[in-house]
């Protein structure tokens, strides 16, 4: 079969539609993941044994199973067991959130633990509450340390959204696969898809590294 590279160009509008969805899921997913990661990371840095264990189980489950399986489970298995419907988009965002949340919680924990204990003691000796010490002394410093890893996790999550094609979310990979099945232009279209991801992540990396530099 002869390759017709014009398909690589003509599929781009379709892919751009998917790109919007990809970015929507990635951004909302990472925001959810950050919220989860912060809470779980704090739980993993605190003294409460029970909360620590529960948080640990969550991290272990997420790290021990593939994202694709997590998405399938969230979209098909859990709604079936509990008898409710979850739209694919929501399932996708939650899957990315839960998944990145586990990794972010480790980033948060590491950053918090890297802050000198003297910072905590100084706050304590000034009569501040645990909450005040955390929010105005520890977290602002930890956040700076976390930033590069958080940016990295965001890029990973953007790429991870392609796995959500298995639950039928109309993100970029899904759009590409649909286009392939109607045109059979496998090489041309998947080439376009790969290029799109590559360009997207190159731009994101550039923007994020600029952000990092500004925060220094």
């Amino acid at each position: 079969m002869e390759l017709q590279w014009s398909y690589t160009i003509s599929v781009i509008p379709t892919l751009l539609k998917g790109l919007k969805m990809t970015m929507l899921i990635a951004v909302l997913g990472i925001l959810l993941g950050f919220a989860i990661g912060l809470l779980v990371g704090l739980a993993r840095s605190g003294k409460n044994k029970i909360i620590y264990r529960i948080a640990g189980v969550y991290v272990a489950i997420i790290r021990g199973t593939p994202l694709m399986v997590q998405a399938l489970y969230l979209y098909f298995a859990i709604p079936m067991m509990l008898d409710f419907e979850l739209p694919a988009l929501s399932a996708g965002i939650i899957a990315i959130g839960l998944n990145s949340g586990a990794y972010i919680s480790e980033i948060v924990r590491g950053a918090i633990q890297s802050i000198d204990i003297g910072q905590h003691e100084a706050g304590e000796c000034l009569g501040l509450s645990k909450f005040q010490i955390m929010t105005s002394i520890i977290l602002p410093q930890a956040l700076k340390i976390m930033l590069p890893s958080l940016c990295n996790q965001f890029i990973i999550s953007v790429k991870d959204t392609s796995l959500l094609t298995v639950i039928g979310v109309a993100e970029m990979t899904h759009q590409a696969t649909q286009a392939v099945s109607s045109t059979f232009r496998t090489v041309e279209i998947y080439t376009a898809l790969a290029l799109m991801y590559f360009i997207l992540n190159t731009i994101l990396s550039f923007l994020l590294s600029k952000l990092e530099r500004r925060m220094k």
Partner: protein
Amino acid sequence: MSEAIVKVENLSKAFGELEVLRDINMEVKEGEVISVIGPSGSGKSTFLRCINLLETPNSGTITYEGNIVTEKGYDRRKLHREIGMVFQRFNLFPHKSVIDNIMLAPRKLKLGAKEELREQAMELLAKVGLESKADEMPGNLSGGQQQRVAIARALAMKPKVLLFDEPTSALDPELVGEVLKVMQNLAEDGMTMIVVTHEMGFAREVSDHVIFMEGGYIVEEGKPKDVFAAPRNERTKKFLASVL
């Protein structure tokens, strides 16, 4: 003589098997300056940290203004608001400017309006000779300047007692003097202070009372002129000979 503001009775502290403080007794009266000296590892820091409950004693009692702070249910934060601490490594907040370091706790604890607290912070900076550094970040200051900011930060809480844990040990020798000078001024203003120090000059000239610790015990204590001029204990003699 007035009542003691801080009183330590039969204080013992161990980290696991390691006994660090053994049956410590002492008291501090208002306006008194006490120096704690002794070799490395003798338990000086631990002693200081027990007083403001950064470490939990294994036994014994600590009384502050007549209240037993080592009892369950005592409000630790009240103690921390009234007993300030200055650390060997300053522990300034690196993400906050000098003035914000000083204002952070008073702001969070709502001790006054913002402008009022700023004014007060500027006065404290003047007191430690660093008005011009108000908007600097701590990382841009010398060690001596950082420690003076740390002292101003502690003073912003208007503490009744200040604890110093080797405040000049992390400093280059030429910067020690400026910090000691600030501490001496505080002492002259009547601040109640407990100072762990290797600066024998300060202990001798500024303090009212000297405690020599070794192996977790108070081996000798008394007026500085007695302890320095005529130590009674062999170990005190040996220690003084090694540092003087």
